[in-house]
């Protein structure tokens, strides 16, 4: 059976680009609104997209984010080019953060991003290889 993808969008996220950080998430929110999806789903997807996007800006050498809208689910994926996460369980722990001072001064680094993403997802998976990169998939069920 071929899979039906209603729509998909790709975003390139640059390292340390705080100026435009959030624009991919804002675009994702706009798309989901235009598609007429329910507000609580849009809110969860916005949180997921924003936290993933900021993590790419702050913690990686760069990466990409993808939104897929299927009839029964919304999927947000990120993939980056490193540096990877040494201990994924630790990274998933509330309050754990390696954010630098610049990021912390801007209010990032509470160590709540990944836990927020997992809480907002119906399905969540993360895979990371040190020295290579991190792959994250978050899915929200529609209806």
């Amino acid at each position, binding site marked *: 059976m071929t899979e039906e993808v209603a729509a998909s969008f790709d975003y390139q996220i640059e390292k340390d680009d*705080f100026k435009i*950080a*959030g*624009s991919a998430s804002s675009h994702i929110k706009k798309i989901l609104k235009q598609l007429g999806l329910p507000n609580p789903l849009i809110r969860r997807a916005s949180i997921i997209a*924003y936290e993933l996007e*900021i993590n790419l800006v702050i913690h990686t050498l760069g990466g990409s984010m993808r939104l897929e809208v299927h009839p029964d689910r919304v999927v947000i994926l990120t993939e980056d080019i490193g540096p990877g996460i040494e201990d994924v369980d630790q990274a998933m722990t509330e309050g754990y953060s390696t954010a630098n001072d610049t990021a912390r001064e801007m*209010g*990032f680094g509470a160590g*709540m991003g990944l836990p*927020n993403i997992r809480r907002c997802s119906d399905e969540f998976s993360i895979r990371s290889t040190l020295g290579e990169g991190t792959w994250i998939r978050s899915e929200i069920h529609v209806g």
Partner: protein
Amino acid sequence: MKVSEMLAGAELNQVAGESGNGNGIKGAYIGDLLSLVMSRALEGNLWITIQAHENIVAVASLVEVSAIVVCEGIHVEPGTVAKANELDIPIFESKASAFELAKTMIGLGIQ
């Protein structure tokens, strides 16, 4: 209560987003850690913070807060103003502390 009505009762200096002054205010959220604001602030909240850089506009627009008050006399950066004007997010500067602002807002009937 509308942002414009709140403005009439509080000593605030508007620096951006006047086109959003018709937004309705429902409650308030005080916070400076953006991932907490993302998950805890509610749609329509007045957001009181000491953060003043551009990213507060993205957060405000994603969460759909009614307006941002930057407290403690901190000045909002020009990039933040430009982005807030673009997205119709009212931003105010205040010399007051978050606690003083909270008292003012409760006095105005924002619960």
